[in-house]
């Protein structure tokens, strides 16, 4: 439901004191979300934020909407229940990398494959913030933390690759330092009908400061981020002369410079949100070399969970008659 008299972004902010560290990346996410809701004219009373546990999961407290701060890793499952009971509600899940991909990995898998109608924000700071800085499943190899004093060993989970593998129909990425693109991406996700998955790279300045500097620092954004727009060539760079090409020899993506080695704009791959194979390759790019793809990698509208739900009869008197009928179906007999 949208409002007749639209509200301002700040009207979506609750009166609760925000308890994130000053400078935390979460601030820019909540700002973007409030703007998205305002732009969409969303009715706060019809909007629900569900979260797990973590710094990121405090999100609902700061939103002037309905909110449920549940238990670690289970927001997706609770949100599914909310949809089951009232498919009309606008449901958001906000979760951290630990919450979504350590303890909550299974539920995330299943909301994505079921295409449960929700906007799912995974605030990825590659660390356990709330519990004071342990390695998370997205921590880069070698990160020294209290649980990995000599550096982590395990290959991290890659949120976008995981989401695509789980069968997600909407997969996107944003970065806390790139407000405009983040806003656009969340707006697209919110407008998507089904499970819209957005990973947001979010700096935790206390326990993992600068983990994304290499791609997220303001000064490098133009060169180090590939802003994806459906139907547009994958061009990036301060001079807008660099691009991504599909190499038909290696069957892999290449990084090229327009005007060099005979490369022209026509050689540049045009982004097609509907191509899952290319989305996978984009998600797989080694971003120490390639730019970081941001925006909507994959979007493939399909019937959502709520669309497929069996209609439910609500009218009590009718129901009573139907229950009576059910009780009397099959073999019955009368005792006089």
């Amino acid at each position, binding site marked *: 439901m949208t409002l007749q008299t639209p509200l301002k972004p700040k009207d979506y902010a*609750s009166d609760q004191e925000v308890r994130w560290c000053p400078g935390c990346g979460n601030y820019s996410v909540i700002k973007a979300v409030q703007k998205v809701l305002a732009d969409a004219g969303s009715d706060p009373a019809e909007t629900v934020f569900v979260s797990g546990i973590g710094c990121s999961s405090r999100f609902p407290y700061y939103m002037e909407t309905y909110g449920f701060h549940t238990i670690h890793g*289970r927001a997706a499952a609770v949100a599914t*229940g909310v949809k089951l*009971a*009232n498919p009309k509600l606008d449901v958001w899940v906000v979760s951290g990398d630990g919450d979504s991909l350590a303890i909550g990995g299974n539920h995330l898998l299943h909301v994505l494959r079921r295409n449960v109608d929700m906007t799912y924000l995974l605030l990825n700071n590659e660390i356990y913030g709330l519990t004071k800085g342990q390695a998370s499943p997205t921590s880069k190899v070698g990160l020294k933390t209290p649980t990995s004093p000599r550096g982590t060993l395990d290959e991290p989970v890659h949120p976008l690759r995981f989401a695509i593998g789980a069968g997600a129909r909407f997969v996107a990425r944003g970065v806390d330092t790139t407000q405009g693109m983040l806003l656009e991406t969340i707006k697209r996700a919110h407008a998507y009908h089904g499970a819209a998955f957005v990973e947001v790279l979010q700096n935790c300045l206390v326990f993992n400061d600068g983990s994304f500097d290499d791609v997220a620092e303001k000064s490098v954004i133009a060169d180090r981020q590939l802003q994806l727009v459906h139907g547009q060539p994958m061009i990036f760079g301060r001079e807008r002369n660099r691009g991504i090409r599909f190499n038909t020899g290696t069957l892999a993506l290449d990084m090229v410079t327009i005007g060099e080695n005979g490369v022209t704009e026509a050689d540049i791959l045009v982004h097609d949100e509907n191509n899952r194979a290319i989305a996978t390759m984009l998600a797989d790019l080694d971003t120490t070399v390639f730019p970081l793809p941001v925006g909507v990698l994959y979007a493939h509208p399909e019937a959502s969970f709520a669309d497929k739900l*069996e209609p*439910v009869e609500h009218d009590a008197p009718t129901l009573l008659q*139907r229950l009576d009928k059910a009780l009397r179906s099959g073999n*019955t007999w009368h005792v006089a």
Partner: protein
Amino acid sequence: MTVQGNATASSTATDVRRTVESAVIRFAGDSGDGIQVTGSQFGLEAAIGGADIATFPDYPSEIRAPQGSVAGVSSFQLQLAGHDIHTPGDSLDALVAFNPAALKAALKDLKKDGLLIADAGAFTTRNLQKAGFAANPLEDGSLEAYRVLAPDISKLTMNTVEAIPDIDSTSKKEALRAKNMWALGLVLWLYGRDRKTTAAWIEKKFKKNDQVLKINRAALDAGFAYGETVGLPSTIEPVAVPPARLPAGDYRSVTGADAIVFGLIAGCEQYGLDPVYCSYPITPASTMLHLLAKLGGDQGVRIFQAEDEIAAACAAIGASYAGAVGITGTSGPGMALKTEALGLAVAAELPLVVINVQRGGPSTGLPTKTEQSDLYQAVMGRNGDTPLAVLSVSSPSDGFEVAREAVELAVDYMTPVVVLTDGYLANASEPWRIPDLSALERRSADAHAVPENFAPYMRDPETLKRPWVVPGTQGTIHRIGGLERQDGSGEVSYDPANHQKMTDIRRDKILGIARAIPAQAPTLGETTGDVAVVGWGSTYGAITDAVADLRAEGLKVSHIHLRHIWPMPANLGDLLKGFEHVIVPEMNTGQLVTLIRAEYLIDAKPLNKVSGRPFAVDEIAVAVRSLIKEG
């Protein structure tokens, strides 16, 4: 199909039958032999014919346990009687053994002089070996204590099938699978039952396969005719069981699983709320999910088969948060997985109904066997001081009332309510008078009403419940969660005094339920006496029959059966103090007895049985007698 019951139970007017007040019959065979179907159909015919019945299906946990092995025996026991009965009976009047393994497993339960019907055709050397018989018991004289009827049912069935006109040869090969119908026909005749309902069931079940339909139909008739026409030995006489004097009304047969499902729906309808049932398949709880799936949106029900029990519990909590009645059903190990989520429901103070169909533990344990060993888990198995209400079911049909009440308590107190039933009850069936739904109490017209001066954790002064104001409501936006909250405002609070207060409120809210539930009365017997036999759950039938026997002996024994496990009825302590001895039979190592001892400082004695099978009436009677003797 409604047939007129209470007519003469026998199908042929020419029969001259001895009347017996009750009979206990067990069908036993390989899991592939169709034992469960045979038993159920017999029960149905008996019930429709006016008898009271109680059934006990028992089967192995493998889909196809090894053919011919004792471990693979599937059985279905039932008692039919011309009066009100409560158990499927201790020892057997008749045993139908489809193979040697079945005989091996069940013979010890057959009464001396009891009737043994065996399929001689299945007593092959190989089958005898598999069952561990050195010689064929049908031939070696070892069954002299029983009345044995051992036709070659396999062959008789084959012959019957051969004789059907237009039967094709592939179907003939399958004919042996109809031998259960042959046996059913014979037993129906022996106990003076009709076979119309079974015939109709065959028509429906095999309507897509005319050949199989004919085969089953013919086998059923042939078995029946065998009784009627083949001169049986004079020791084997057909009997009649008179109709039981049941209260007037329309009846159907329900299993414990069915009754709970209907009760849940009825409970929600009282409030005009939708049930949302979230579950993950697990034996023996899945049958509830199956029935709910079948009933579907038509009954206002939404089901959700979750990815695991944690998700099921969480989705149910989400559904309750959004205004439906979230329900989650499972069995022991699944209940263990829901533990953390139940804590959230307690902290968030949301209604939630949890059905736990207990089974043999620990761990995976004995998945298809029954036990009552999850009481501790239900009452105390959570981190923190996390009280909730616990109810229990005593008989298959009792599930209706208990499930209905569980919904009421969940909504009226904004709390999770755990309903304990068990594998025995879930599968067992009994005749049930269909309740008059129009008499259902219509409760609080709007469960989601916004109280004046709304605050999320404001309290109803009577029940201490907080208001259930749901997303989508204008003007009451708020946030809840599992962190401790300020009484009233519901804001997150780390204040020490508030935590103390909230902990006390949560405890008092649940304890306060004791004021709303009826005082405990004895199920049978006086309110004082020598021995109180205190039970809960599916021991009901065995205890009540045992107490009836003891009272018939003139002993001052009463049966006190709890539906309300937590909180316990307000008068329970006083009631129990009126008895010299208190004994608590449980299918666990002593769980309810611990609560009673701790609450009332009464030296209640445990009587425990943990063998995956219900108590026999006699086991209880013996224990009570020796208690009286001792002192």
